[in-house]
């Protein structure tokens, strides 16, 4: 398989690397304390001192965006990790072994797709109790398991009867070895784009939940919560909403381009 980079992949990687760099930077250093208020610097427009301006408390928005995207990216990454690992495990086992467990799990899966992802996350969060970062991660993580399970199940089922799998089985390889070493790498062309899409859905879902006030709550800023703050002062400080919104869009756009590029790589590899 010859790997050829394509434009989408490169553009996506550039955008994502820049944003990831800024986000990681935000964990260690921000120009100002993101929660420090300053009566003298209320509602200042973007300037060299405050790149994205300040809000109604005189807080530096650039620092807040860095910190907020740190929270959002952290939650989204954990969510995708839970969804992908658990979903792949379920999908791999059901796709490989088939049978009644497969039937039951897939019917459950069908029913779960009737819930829009945010609705399901809201149900889980109302059970766990709103307002905590861990609960948001668990809620969204659970929500993303079925879609990963469905996807990997199809991928595993489609290569289950290939000759090389049969050979491995005849040579005495155990199921775990076959699943992990022989099959998993061959489903990566499906799994990797799915992870990028999952990450994007997680960013948007987390932002929506925090926007609604039942996700992450202050003092932990997340991009969604900041947007809901920004809506109230849009007339006086439009830069707050714009910089926060653009940060979300660019995050999702960059990772989306990577996914598009990976998908095309996968398609080329098939032929």
């Amino acid at each position, binding site marked *: 398989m010859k790997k050829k980079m394509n*434009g989408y992949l490169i553009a996506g990687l550039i955008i994502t690397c820049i944003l990831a760099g800024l986000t990681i930077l935000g964990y260690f250093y921000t120009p100002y304390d993101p929660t420090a208020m300053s009566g003298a610097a209320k509602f200042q427009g973007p300037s060299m001192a405050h790149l994205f301006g300040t809000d109604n408390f005189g807080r530096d928005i650039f620092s807040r965006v860095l910190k907020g995207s740190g929270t959002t990216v952290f939650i989204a990454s954990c969510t995708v990790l839970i969804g992908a690992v658990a979903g792949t495990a379920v999908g791999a086992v059901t796709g490989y072994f088939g049978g009644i467990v497969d039937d039951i799990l897939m*019917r459950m899966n069908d029913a779960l797709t009737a819930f829009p992802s945010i*609705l399901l996350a809201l149900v889980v969060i109302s059970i766990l109790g*709103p307002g905590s970062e861990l609960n948001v991660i668990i809620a969204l993580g659970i929500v993303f398991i079925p879609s990963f399970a469905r996807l990997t199940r199809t991928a595993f089922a489609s290569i289950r009867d290939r000759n090389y799998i049969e050979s491995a089985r005849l040579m005495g390889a155990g199921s775990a070895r076959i699943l992990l070493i022989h099959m998993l790498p061959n489903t990566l062309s499906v799994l990797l784009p799915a992870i990028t899409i999952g990450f994007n859905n997680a960013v948007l879902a987390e932002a*929506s939940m925090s926007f609604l006030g039942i996700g992450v709550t202050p003092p932990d800023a997340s991009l969604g919560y900041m947007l809901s703050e920004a809506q109230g002062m849009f007339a006086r400080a439009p830069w707050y909403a714009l910089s926060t919104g653009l940060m979300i869009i660019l995050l999702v756009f960059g990772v989306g381009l990577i996914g598009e590029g990976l998908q095309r790589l996968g398609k080329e590899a098939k032929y």
Partner: protein
Amino acid sequence: MKSMLRRVLMLLATMLIVSFLTYAAFELISGDPAEAMLGTQATPARVEALRKELGLDAPFLVRYARWLLGFFSGNLGVSYSYKLPVAELIAPKLAVTLWMCLISFIIISVISLPLGVLSYQSAVGRFGWLHTTLNQFFMAVPPFFTGILISWGCGVILRFFTPGDFPDLHADPAGALRYLFFAAVCIAIPRVAMMLRMMRSTVISEMEKDYVQTAISRGNDRQGVLVGHVLKNSLVPAITMLGQTMAEIVAGGIVVEQVFGIPGLGRLLVASIANRDYPTVQAVVVILAFWVVFAGMAADLVNQCIDPRLRLGGES
């Protein structure tokens, strides 16, 4: 006919599972509603009496059956925080949310179906990358962000509507629908991008098929084949996808209602979650899930009208 019947049975089964999952989930956590209603000061005897009165002493499955029967006869229980029947609470909001979803659905269909087919020529051409990039970009735009921009631009500046002042749906239907239209646009933008992306890949793979190549080699022009043959064959997956979009519209609607201050099910849901008002959450979740399942079935039925193979129970 037979396949339609099977579809309806499957719909009922899905609805049953959906409602059961929701009911079970909330039963597990909500603890004892009797205690919740009486507060911590209540004597055990009073709690026990109320439990009997509410029918909470019955086994789980019996309670579920009662709740489900109640649900279909319009008795959704009593809200903890408003002390009102949930049905009364939901009825006026249901119409608002359904209208918003419907308008958004119409916008998505009207824009993406024709555009998906018409943009084929330029999407496979030299500027194909631009289509893909724009698609990815618009898919990244969260509805609540466009909501902030539109409610400011079209509401505060252009005064098409007054943000935060939702007209009554019965007293001023035109004003209410106009208000809902702007919210629906915000939900529709990323969905249109997603539809276009999916339509394009369908049309492209359809154009590679033998019958298309035959039609073109016999002297038909590409545009004619596209509209005459490919359009109809691409319609089935497109309509399936449109049906699935309803889930995303509902999800977007929950947030957009908050941005625009629309008194719909989404805001009720969020408020009820914050107040731990489980009967209301339960009812709203099941209603929204039913609406999504129903949209999926409607899409299937439309497809059976378009594609005779599906009517006979085959695969498309």
